[in-house]
């Protein structure tokens, strides 16, 4: 249910959602696997308030380069298309929601 973005769809998603939360991940990363269900819950809790999506950094190098992502999982939080927070490492649901409100 959480949308998978690509380098091509990233900017439009950030533009179209007043609050956008994007979980940058890769399939070989243990902590990313643990972040998956947490992000699903965040999406559920913030439905209608924020757009929540995932970006596979392995397949979408341009976006990871643009935002200088050097560790995963990393969560990017945008408000009105401006990057307002970068959360590095495994985070609890509450932390993520707080940074988006």
């Amino acid at each position, binding site marked *: 249910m959480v949308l998978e973005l690509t380098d091509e769809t990233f900017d439009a998603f950030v533009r179209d959602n007043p609050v956008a939360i994007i979980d940058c991940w*890769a399939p*070989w*990363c*243990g*902590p*990313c*696997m*643990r972040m998956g*269900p*947490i992000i699903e819950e965040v999406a559920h809790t913030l439905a209608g308030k924020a757009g929540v999506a995932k970006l596979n*950094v*392995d397949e979408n190098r341009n976006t*990871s380069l643009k935002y*200088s*992502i*050097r*560790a*995963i999982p*990393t969560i990017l939080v945008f408000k009105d298309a401006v990057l307002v927070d*970068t959360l*590095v*490492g*495994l985070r*609890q649901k509450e932390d993520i929601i707080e940074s988006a409100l």
Partner: protein
Amino acid sequence: MDFDVMVIGSGPAGIQAAIHSARRKARTVLLGKAGNSAMAGAKIENYFGTGGPEDGSALLAKGLSQAEAAGCSAIGKNAVSASAAGGSFSASLESGAEISARAVVLATGVSRNSLGIPGEKELFGKGVSYCASCDCNFYKGVPVVVIGGDSEAALAAELMTGYASEVRWIADGVAADPILVERARRAGAALAVGRPVRISGSAGVESVALADGTEIPARGVFIELGGRSSADLAMDLGIMPEPDDSVKVDGGCRTSVAGVFACGDVTGRPWQVARAVGQGAVAGSNAADYSKGAGS
């Protein structure tokens, strides 16, 4: 090597579990390094029957010989991975050995992963990483430093030689199995003894300073202490750890996977020896019974 019960972790929880398992006549193997227990080098103030501050290392040494006397095989090596298949479990050790068993006791304590030096927190995600296997791809063609003396550091140093332009591996003592150290070296990692005191950089990591004044230029710093973390081992075995990395158990120290038990600090607070050995006794007994098909 095939056993009934495999105990991962040689702190008070794992040693007590091994004692109870072996005394129930289950063929028991105990993995891990007692020297890496939270209790090693600590003064234990409040443990029953000791009469006051007791040397943690001495208690561990006595406990280990007690476990061996009870018939348990103690192998002082870290597990580098674990797996579950067809009702049996196996672990790969840093020495290359494979161990299998019908039941597992996870007693890996709380993983210490940060160094606590200036620059570490500030540069996390900007060059500082705690997971080489997650982040290796971001460091293609740049120099990196790997910090730590045990098996995870050796594996990370070896892995990073496939990505970075240069890998400097800094340890203030090497505890990793010689086989792993040799593999990392042969892959091209340069091992040096030293104690990191500071990580510097503004937008990203620029260098790591050692206690002797050496400054090593680097774009990435991988901090990899100890053995494979409790959370990773739990995931290997099909258990989803709690957000704080702990593993949930019921009153019988059973995890969400049948045949896998857990005890001690890995199951949550309070982080105390008395709780660790209490749970260890329960987990060891139940694992022994489970391995013999007596359920638990």
